[in-house]
């Protein structure tokens, strides 16, 4: 059994309509997704916007209602637990995309970082203050700044506050939902490297959600690629980047920018090739509704969504 196991997860949102506002249809945001996370590793979930990757992350931690399917954490089912004080809340934490809206503007840093501590641990004011200062130091912020408001920090600093808060309870798993996409490129690398550092230090498992394959390549051991609520391919980072099987993955990988200017022409041609292949063979890889097929194993770790042969 894995560390975190997702089985056939579905998250559907109702579409209301008609005379009485009945549910007439559903948006299948996540439509049958299964995967497993290994302890201490980083799992990347990639897809374009609207592919259901964020919804998957939010459903795991209980922010979105799960329509069907199961979520196991350390062999215990945690599907659809919405109670605030459940045990797994200590163990699974989340880092949000937007460091501007994810911190309550009316609270001081000490209140922000101490919020999870106050929910789960009974600390005296002094102990709490010391813990918060330790956490700030850990994420590389000035421990003196505990009385400041979030708007006095830069985006990167604010994201560090968000991280300090997420690791406050010594969680085992952190779901990072596009943690750097709202930041300047120069700050992105800083935050990513810092996240890697604390991963070793605190023995963390990451589930890393991003649309940016470059970031994913930098961070992840395993990768899942989503398209329209389904998986199109899953495998180790090496398998995905060196040997992409699904046409959608190929196209994504081809789109990663290369910094070497001498290869510019070569890359351009390569992309055009992949693109024309994508257009030609689209119908082979997707069904009539434009959705991906079920996953078929190629190797032990490498799974690709291919149609039934025949």
């Amino acid at each position, binding site marked *: 059994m894995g560390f975190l196991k997702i089985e056939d997860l579905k998250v559907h949102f109702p579409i209301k309509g008609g005379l009485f506002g009945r549910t007439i249809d559903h948006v299948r945001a996540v439509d049958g997704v299964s995967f497993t996370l290994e302890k201490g590793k980083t799992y990347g979930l990639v897809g374009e916007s609207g592919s259901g990757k964020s919804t998957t992350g*939010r459903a795991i*931690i*209980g*922010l979105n209602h799960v329509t069907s399917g199961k979520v196991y954490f350390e062999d215990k089912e945690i599907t659809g637990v919405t109670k*605030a*004080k*459940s045990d797994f*809340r*200590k163990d*699974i*934490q*989340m880092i*949000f*995309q*937007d460091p501007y*809206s*994810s*911190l*309550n*503007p*009316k*609270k001081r840093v000490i209140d922000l970082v101490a*919020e*999870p501590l106050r*929910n*789960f641990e009974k600390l005296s004011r002094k102990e709490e203050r010391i813990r918060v200062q330790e956490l700030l130091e850990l994420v590389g912020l000035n421990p*003196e700044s505990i*009385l*400041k*408001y979030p*708007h*006095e920090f830069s985006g990167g600093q604010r994201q560090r506050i*968000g991280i300090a*808060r997420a690791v406050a309870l010594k969680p085992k798993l952190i779901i990072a939902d596009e943690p750097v996409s709202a930041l300047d490129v120069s700050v992105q690398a800083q935050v990513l490297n810092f996240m890697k550092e604390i991963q070793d230090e605190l023995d963390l498992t990451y589930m890393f959600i991003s649309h940016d394959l470059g970031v994913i390549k930098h961070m992840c051991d395993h990768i899942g690629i989503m398209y329209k609520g389904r998986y199109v391919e899953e495998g180790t980072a090496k398998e995905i980047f060196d040997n992409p099987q699904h046409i959608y993955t190929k196209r994504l990988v081809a789109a990663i920018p290369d910094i070497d200017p001498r290869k510019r022409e070569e890359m351009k041609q390569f992309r055009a090739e992949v693109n024309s292949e994508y257009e030609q063979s689209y119908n082979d890889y997707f069904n009539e509704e434009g959705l991906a097929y079920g996953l078929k194993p190629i190797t032990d770790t490498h799974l690709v969504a291919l149609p039934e042969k025949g």
Partner: protein
Amino acid sequence: MEANVEVKAKEVIKSPSGFSVVWRELIKDKLALISLIFLIGVTAFVYGTAIFLDQEEIVKVDLFSIYEPPGEEFILGTDYGGRDVFGQLIIGTRNSLSIAILVTLMTGIIGIIYGLVSGYFGGHIDNIMMRILDFFLILPFTMIVIAFVAIVPKYSVWTFSLIMTAFLWMGIARLVRSKALAEKELDYIQAARTLGTSNFKVVFKHLLPNVSSIIIVNMTINLAGNIGLESGLSFLGFGFPESTPSLGTLLSYARNPQTLEFRWWIWVPASLMILLLMLAVNNVGTALRRAVDARQRRG
């Protein structure tokens, strides 16, 4: 040590507290400042002198001094029962202010809780709660309050304020709901939930502080409105009982055409008092509104 103090001082300059923003706005807006001073002055005066005035004495009928015009004995003359108008004005202002404040607070509390619950939980709960609110909103306020006042058996100041509250909480509830709806989509609310914070705490510790400024502004403006509503109902004879005069009670004597035409001293001072109070509260409210909305600040 000294350096530390300096750092602290700098921080204060960097992020001014809510109070100092409001204060700066008031200083810039002379009209609001005068209004505030007027309000504090009037409030202190009426509550202060009302301690020494005997309400029983003032509302007692004295047949020997009916309709005295203003003079040495009675600064503002007397009414049809020979009662001192000036004394009634002081007690009336106090009573009107008290009930307006009471009703504003009660409607505020109900409205805030209703709006927060409806906005935060959303979905079916919100739908049903909004239907109920819409119904209350449609009812013509004056009419329904009059009907209720007419049938309540043991009528007192308390029942009056409860009836007013029952039909005045909707505005603030709607405002708080729409703010809560917008606010709850922001990640900090979602974040609080992943950190294990209970719904109750999320609503009152996260949501409420972020909508509080607009609530305060709205309640200030409501206070002005409630002074007007109370005096209006008392004017029609459906507010305070006559034994506890309000500003509206004094005005209701003007429903007698004789009084309206010839005995201005009975109703003009009370009218002016209502007008000035409402204008002053509104001025302060507008200054607060500007202080809350950074784009409109003058200071």
